[in-house]
């Protein structure tokens, strides 16, 4: 087991090293550089040279890479070109918002999806299923920005129940994460982006749970359980659902990682101050250190979630755990 964990950690570090190298190179291959943000009639070649020097972009790409890797090994992500702050500080400010948005919407989506999927598997062939499946597919297929704008129009513009964007009302200070979490204002602002993301995400666990349940319910051990005279509740929850949950758990862990990076659209529509929005702004303005840091963070979450999914598999399915011990 320990060997397996060490192997996983090594794999994780290798992936992060490759990702960090790729993002470093990719941003520098893109046309333009950060000085293009400052073009004005008084902008001269001397101004540009001074700015490039201050950003460290006057050095060769190898020197820049070695400097970036050296800093990275010391846990230093550099300073944002445009915001004048350390990238780690900016990411630390944005990350809680992204994590909260992702966790709330993903948990709600999976809780709903698992229950609804199991229910639909039991009620296969009914009217409810005939209506629920296309609805789940439609919300899954709908673009996030469209879904978000629809909810904004209905629940914010027309009904006036929710604010149109941001994480807090104008002028309110975010304070600590703890203060944010107990702030009613914060949850009021979170409601619409979380609902959008939840509606978008619930289709996968619902359909997955339903399909797996249908498969599991035909297995011999379920027939055996019935023959033993176990209650229907016990068969569904203790035997069928536990087995059917395996792929859903994997999807949850992967979904958590993917949503961290995939919240870009929802965060932009609702002006939610998370990592995704920071990433978009960094890419648009060629703020290399910030973009690299944000990509690396998203990649780290994604590969960590993959590893956690593996471990969760082992906990839920003893056969996998035995395989690890060999």
């Amino acid at each position, binding site marked *: 087991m320990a060997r397996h964990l060490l192997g996983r950690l090594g794999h994780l570090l290798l992936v992060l090293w490759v990702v960090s190298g790729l993002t470093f190179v990719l941003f520098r291959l*893109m*046309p*333009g*550089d950060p000085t*293009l*943000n*400052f*073009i*004005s*009639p*008084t*902008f*001269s*070649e*001397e*101004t*540009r040279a*001074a*700015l490039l*020097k*201050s950003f*460290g972009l*006057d050095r060769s790409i190898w020197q820049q890479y070695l400097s970036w890797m050296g800093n990275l090994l010391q846990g230093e992500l550099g*300073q944002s*070109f*445009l*915001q*004048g*702050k350390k990238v780690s500080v900016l990411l630390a*400010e*944005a990350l809680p918002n992204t994590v909260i948005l992702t966790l709330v919407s993903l948990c709600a989506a999976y809780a709903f999806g698992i229950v609804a999927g199991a229910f639909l598997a039991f009620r296969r062939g009914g009217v409810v299923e005939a209506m629920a499946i296309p609805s789940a597919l439609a919300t899954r297929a709908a673009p996030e920005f469209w879904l978000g*704008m629809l909810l*904004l*129009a209905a629940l*914010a*513009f027309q009904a*006036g129940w929710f*604010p*149109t*964007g*941001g*994480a807090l*009302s*104008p*002028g309110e*200070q*975010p304070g600590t994460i703890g203060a944010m979490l107990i702030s009613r204002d914060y949850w009021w602002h979170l409601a619409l982006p979380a609902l959008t993301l939840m509606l978008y995400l619930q289709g996968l666990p619902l359909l997955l749970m339903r399909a797996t349940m249908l498969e599991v319910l035909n297995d011999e051990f379920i027939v055996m359980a019935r023959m033993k005279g176990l209650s229907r509740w016990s068969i569904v929850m203790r035997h069928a659902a536990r087995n059917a949950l395996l792929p859903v758990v994997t999807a949850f862990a992967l979904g958590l990682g993917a949503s961290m990076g995939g919240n870009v659209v929802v965060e*932009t*529509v*609702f*002006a939610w*101050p998370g990592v995704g*929005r*920071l990433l*978009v*702004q960094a890419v*648009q303005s*060629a703020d290399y250190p910030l973009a690299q840091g944000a990509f690396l963070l998203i990649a780290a979450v994604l590969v960590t979630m993959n590893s956690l999914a593996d471990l969760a598999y082992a906990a839920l399915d003893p056969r996998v755990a035995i395989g690890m011990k060999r």
Partner: protein
Amino acid sequence: MMNRLAVAVALAGLGTLPANAQTAGDPIRPLVILAQPQAAAPQEYQAAEMVAEAWKSLGLRVTVRPLPGQQFNQIVWFERQRWDTTTWQMVGRAERSDPDELTYNLFVSANIANGYNLVGLNSPAYDKLAQAQREELDLTKRQGLIHEIQEVINQEQPYGFMVHPKNLVAYNKAVWDESSMVDQAGIGIRNFWTWIALKPKGAQKDVILNSVAPPTNLSPFNIPGAQGSWATELVWDRLMRIGPDGLPRPWAAESVTRPTPTIVDVVLKSGMKWHDGKPVTIEDAVFSLEAPGYADKSPMYRPFVGNIEKVETTGPMSLRITLKRPDAAFLVSSLSKLNLAPKHIWAPIFENLKGKPETAESVMEQPVPIGSGPFKFVSVKLTEQIVLEANPDHWAKPSVNRWIMRIAPNIEATLGALKSGEINFLTDYTGDPELLANLPKSSPNIALSSSLDIGFKFIAYNERRPPFNDVAFRRSISAAIDREALAADAFGGAAVPANSWVSPALAFWAAPGIDKKVPGGTLEAAKKMLKDAGYVLVGDRLHYPAGVKETTPVFQ
């Protein structure tokens, strides 16, 4: 057999060519108009499409090529041999109330290689006039020079000037007294003077406005883009400010006088304090004028002190600036632009920066920057919001409590926020002007202010690439542009036709009637001008004059 057939067909084809084909040069290559993508700049994109259609009717092959922002800027700015034409714009800023900044930088030949003369116009007559207006301190004579220089550009047509846009600002008139809005010439009501004069009608005393894009680092030595400037000009005082009339007036200075063309005497207002409670001294003022010139530590502000020979104190509250050369726009371009920065905070920062590659532009004071202006920082989160509060110790103390700028990229959601009262000023609007114009009808509390901007939108012709090096060709394609249609259709009526970089909003400087003086002025005249210049229409394709070969590659 096939080869013989092909030769026969080609020869037969030659026999049927129109007679003028034999006197024509090569066909003009397909031309490209660069533009930002439609999603990023819908009005400019549509305008480019309309211009392309007009040029097609001259016999040109034209396509509009949208490019992502960074790539677009990269090509236009750094690959000047590569492109034919491009859409571009100059935005209105208070310091452009004096025409010098644009007059000097856009077209003088010294800026062809690396500066803002993107089109490569090389006109000795222009250079001479641009320098003359810069050195002419007599206002009436300078006005004459500025009028004359606009006529030079009208004849050269280095740009296809399109429109001067209108500033559209919507606000909640149930919250704010409409009579307290200050309409600044060429800027509109979204300006410094409005923020300090604004009178609340009721309990809501916070100005809440929007910005689509986040500003960059807020520092007295950084130019943080248009939106960031709205905040910095409230926090840092300047010796002078551009008044609502568009002219410079003393602000932190008690008086500013010019005893000779190269001497400027300044008396500092007494009793001023920094937001940390320390007094504003004459040493602070001298430091603020000198610091941008310190060894590449403030590259963006450095050009504004480039003409300063020396600054010396002449009394406890007075200083004298000696210029290297006479500069008519100095009061606007330098004294109304440079922020007063506290020496006790920034001198150690500059000292610490010595020998390091970093500049003062990237330094962010913690926890919040300190100025002496009518507002002070409460909190700054550049991607979320900037919160300022009124400075009770300032001689121009505002009537509002706080000034809050919300940063939200979704403009439709921001429109909804204005209607619901989450914001009470819509100051940054990039959507459909018609939608905004109709807003007061559906929301009676919303008022809309529309005023002509100092800025302008244009299509630049790259004179490095034929046929744009031919003035007759440039005049012809400019004449083919229907500016009235552009203003009405592409810009939704929120613009007026342009034919100069000096906006009619600057009535003193704009050459009277210049927008109607485009040589030729119509599509039909454009066709005749091309014909007169030797360009030949063969079939439906425009060719160079006889003997001229097409050697310039098509933009890829």
